[in-house]
């Protein structure tokens, strides 16, 4: 009976409306911001607007359109999103995946 009094058609509909509005706001912001576009020119050596987070300069904190900054892992070839759960540590497989990623990117550029 408690659930019936608390969660009425009215209260649940208001929650649904709020949820819908927040989803729509997030979707519109996502579409307008174009965060999926990568800054291709960024590398370990050239990274305007980015902040190196450790001595080697491989991990940078760079802006993403519309969403603030995030961490990137960089090589001479380019930069890619840093796996956040490792913090500033770079695992061997992470470094290997970064190399593989740029091999694929280079193949696309050649085509």
């Amino acid at each position, binding site marked *: 009976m408690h*659930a*019936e009094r*608390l*969660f*009425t*058609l009215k209260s*649940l*509909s208001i*929650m*649904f409306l*709020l*949820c*819908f509005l*927040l*989803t729509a*706001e*997030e979707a519109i*912001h*996502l579409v307008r911001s174009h*965060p*999926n*576009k*990568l800054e291709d020119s960024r590398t370990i050596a050239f990274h305007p607007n980015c902040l190196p987070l450790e001595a080697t300069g491989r991990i940078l*904190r760079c802006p*993403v359109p*519309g*969403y*603030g*900054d*995030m*961490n990137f892992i960089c090589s001479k070839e380019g930069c*890619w*999103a840093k*796996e*956040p*759960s*490792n*913090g500033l*540590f770079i*695992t*061997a*497989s*992470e470094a*290997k*995946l970064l190399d*593989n990623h740029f*091999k*694929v990117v*280079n*193949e*696309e550029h050649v*085509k």
Partner: protein
Amino acid sequence: MIPASKSDREPEKDQKARQRPFWLPTSLRYFLFAILGLTIVSLGYSLVARILGFGLPYSFSYPFIPGAFFSDFSEFRLRFPDFGTPQFFNHIGYLMYPAAMTLAIEAFYATPHPLKIFFLFLVIIGMFFTGCLYHILRKGGLSLGPAALLTAAILITSYPYLVLLLRWNTEVFIWLTVTLGLWTFYRRQYVWAAIWIGLAAALKLYPIIFFGLFLPRRRYLDIALGVFIAIAITVVALRTLSPNIVYAFHWNSVQLQAFGKYYAAAPHNLGYDHSLLGLVKFATLPWHPDLTSALRPFTWFIAVACLVLYFGRIWKMPIFNQILSLSVLSVSIAPVSYDYTLLSLYAALTILCVAALHTSEDEQSNLTPFFLLFAAILTPLNFIILHGAVFGAQLRALLLIALLVMTLRRPIRTEGDIA
């Protein structure tokens, strides 16, 4: 044991409750409140973090990798124009899927606009299942308003579906085949169930676990049919890839092994990997160990644990408990299981909704914990952040274990058992 069939012995107060304009069983009211509440918290949290300039991962409710949106399908755009030619095998990068999946992908790349058509397909499948759920709820006795509200709420709060839409992952094929397989099984259309599950097993291997539903009912011929379908589609796919089937098979094996080499042991994307191994990776994160050597023993341990659970407990349970426990295992036991795989849980959720509609108000409290766990598992949980990284998936893994334990301890009888 919870009797879940509507009958003439239905208490008078339940009959009166059903006649109200906004009748929704108590457990479903809790579920609706929980999915909406948790999603509002997630989206509100991201919005505030975005306004305050906290940056990522705080400012977005879903997994975020710039350049990776839509990439799980669009990354094939260079390789698939060469489908059926030797050049197909020479591209850089891996195609880490069973051979049968190449047929499903090629079905889209063979069209003039593969990306647009695949996106349309993702949307249509979402709408199709939403429509099916609405139809099932209406058939179960819900009036138009509550059925529409519940269905729409499940759609807009569906975290795995939104992750699928953001990544364009081929998991949509698994979602389609597994859901149709489980629902047809629940409706006792065993031949169709075997065909759908056979298809799913060809596309991903892990759905093979659902053949465990047929064993207690002695549907051996249906298992044989499903296995035959899986093997036949794989052979057709290999032959389509190359006239030299052995070469295509070896190439495909190397691709699948690459997944184990690069992803299975690494803590990549831990924020949306809810696998049981993900929990081990999370627990060992401070030491950054290479878990590659632990993969094989872990896989054996999981396989033995699944067999013990299956023959010791699942075998004897009612159909709903069997479907839910095998669904939970199918999305947890792989070394890596990203959050879009949770779509395979919606078939069990639908059956639970049907059970709720047929359960008296006095017994709704038995179903509420199931619904609350479903609600937490299927909403974003992006606010679980430690040291700048999202670990919502690890909480989800714990919730999946809780759901499995509860499923094995609380038998729930549904229409499927009574019939």
